[in-house]
C-alpha cells in the first residue's frame, strides 16, 4: 500500500490549487465573516448564548451547502478525469486500483473536511473574543464529529456515483437529484406524507432516520436544544425512542457507516467494471 499515501498527498496538493477549493473555503470562511458582521453572536446575553447561536446557524447553513459542494466537486473531478483521459494516463502506471481509489478518497476527505472545521474554530474563537469565557469543548467535539460524518457520507455517495456514471454531465445531474431528494425529505416531503395520511407514521420516521442530512440536523440541534422542540415531531419521536445519548451516537455513526458502504460499493464497481 506504499502508493496510497502518494495518491492522497498528490490529490490534496492538486485540490489546494483548484478553483473549486478556493470557492469552497471562501464560502465557509465567508459565511463565518457574514455571521460576525450581521451580529449573530451579539445577542442580548453575550457569551455562550451568542456562541451557541453562531454555531447553530453555521451548522444549519452547512446542512444545505456542504452536501452539494462535496457531491458536485467530487463527481466533477473524478468523472472529468475519466472524460479527459487523465485517468487513463495515471492508471497506466503500476498502481493498484485499491491504492488509487482509496488514496483519492482520503485526499478528497482532507480537502473537504478541514476548511469547514477550521471555519468552525474561527467562529468559536470569535465567540470567545466577543465575551465567552470558556471553551465549549462538548459542542466543538460534537460538531466536528458531525461534520466528519457528513463529509464521509457525501464523499461515499459521490465516489459511488462517479464510478457508476461515466458521463460528467449525468454525474453532476445525479448529484443534484440526490441532494434535492435528501433535502426534501428532511421536511417538506415528510410533512406532505404525514398530511396525506397514506403511509404509517413509523415509515415516515424510518425515512427520516435513514436520511443522513436529517440525522446530521438532529445531532447538531440535540446539543443546543436537548428537547429538540425546534425541529418538530420526527425528532421528538426519535428522542423519545432512542434517548439523548443514543440519538447522538446514531447521528454520528450512521452517516459514517452509510458513507463507507457507498464508498465500498463504488470501489467494487471501480474494480469490476471498465475503467474508461
Amino acid at each position, binding site marked *: 500500500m506504499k*502508493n496510497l499515501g502518494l495518491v492522497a498527498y*498528490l490529490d490534496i496538493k492538486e485540490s489546494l490549487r483548484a478553483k473549486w477549493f478556493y470557492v469552497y473555503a471562501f464560502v465557509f470562511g465567508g459565511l463565518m465573516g457574514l455571521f460576525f458582521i450581521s451580529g449573530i453572536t451579539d445577542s442580548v446575553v453575550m457569551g455562550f448564548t451568542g456562541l451557541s447561536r453562531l454555531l447553530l446557524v453555521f451548522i444549519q447553513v452547512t446542512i444545505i451547502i456542504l452536501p452539494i459542494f462535496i457531491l458536485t466537486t467530487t463527481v466533477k473531478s473524478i468523472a472529468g478525469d475519466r472524460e479527459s*483521459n487523465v485517468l487513463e494516463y495515471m492508471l497506466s*502506471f503500476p*498502481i*493498484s486500483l485499491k491504492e488509487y481509489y482509496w488514496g483519492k478518497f482520503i485526499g478528497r476527505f482532507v480537502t473537504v473536511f478541514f476548511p469547514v472545521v477550521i471555519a468552525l474554530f474561527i467562529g468559536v474563537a470569535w465567540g470567545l473574543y466577543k465575551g465567552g469565557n470558556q471553551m465549549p469543548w462538548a459542542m466543538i467535539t460534537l460538531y466536528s464529529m458531525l461534520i466528519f460524518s457528513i463529509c464521509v457520507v457525501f464523499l461515499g455517495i459521490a465516489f459511488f456515483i462517479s464510478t457508476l456514471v461515466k458521463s460528467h454531465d449525468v454525474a453532476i445531474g445525479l448529484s443534484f437529484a440526490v441532494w434535492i431528494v435528501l433535502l426534501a425529505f428532511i421536511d417538506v416531503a415528510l410533512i406532505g406524507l404525514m398530511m396525506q395520511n397514506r403511509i404509517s407514521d413509523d415509515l415516515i420516521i424510518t425515512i427520516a432516520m435513514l436520511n443522513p442530512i436529517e440525522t446530521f440536523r438532529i445531532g447538531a440541534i440535540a446539543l443546543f436544544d436537548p428537547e429538540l422542540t425546534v425541529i418538530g415531531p420526527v425528532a421528538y419521536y426519535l428522542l423519545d425512542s432512542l434517548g439523548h445519548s443514543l440519538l447522538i451516537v446514531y447521528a454520528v455513526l450512521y452517516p459514517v457507516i452509510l458513507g463507507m458502504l457507498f464508498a465500498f460499493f463504488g470501489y467494487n464497481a471501480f474494480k469490476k467494471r*471498465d475503467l474508461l
Partner: protein
Amino acid sequence: MPDKKIVEARNVVKQFMGERVLDDVTISIDLGDKIAMMGPNGAGKTTFVRSMLGFYHIDSGKIQIEGLDPIKSRTKVLKEISFIPQLPPPVKLNVAELLEYVERSSDTPSSRIAEEAKAMDLDIDAQMQKPFFKLSGGMKQKLLIAIALARKSKLFVFDEPTANLDPKAREHFYKLLSGIDYPHSTIFITHRIEEVEGLANRKIYMDLGKVVEDERL
C-alpha cells in the same frame, strides 16, 4: 534476440452496447517486435491496447502479458509497459508532482527522466513548478516520451506519439527509440506507416474490430 512472448491475445471479444469493437482478435507479440498498428478510426486499435493495459474487461478470449492477466495482476503487468496516449491528458499536477508520482509508483528516478527529456531538448528543471496541462503541446509530448523511455519497460505503447512534435523533435524521438539498448517491443498506433518507417518490423492492420493483415516488414 530471444523469441520470448510479451503479449498473447487469443480470440478476444469486446463489446460496447452490443457492438463488437474487438471481434475475435488474436495477436501474439514477441520480444523484439516493433509493430505499426494501423487501421481507420473505430477499427479497435485503442480498445485492444486499453484491454492490454487492463482498462477494459474483455467479454471473451484471453489476454496475457508475459503470462499474466492484466486485470488480476495489474501492477506486475504495468511495470513492464510504458504508455503514451494520443493526446497529452490535462493532468493538473505540476511537473515536479508528476515526476514524483512516476518515481514512486514505477521506481523510475526523476534524474533519468530529466536525462531523457534533455535528449529531446526539454529542460524540465525550468518547468518543475508549472502545472503539466499548462505546458505547450510539444513540451507535454516530450515529457511523456521522456517518462516512457526512462521507465525502461519491456513493452512501449505509443498512440500517435509524434502528433504534437515538430520535425526536429520527431528526429530526436526516433533517435532515442533506435538507441534503446535492451530487448523490448513496441506498438505504434498510427495512421501513416511513413511515421514509423525504419522503426517498425511488423505491420498489423485492423478494421471493424478484426485483424485483417499481419505481416513482417
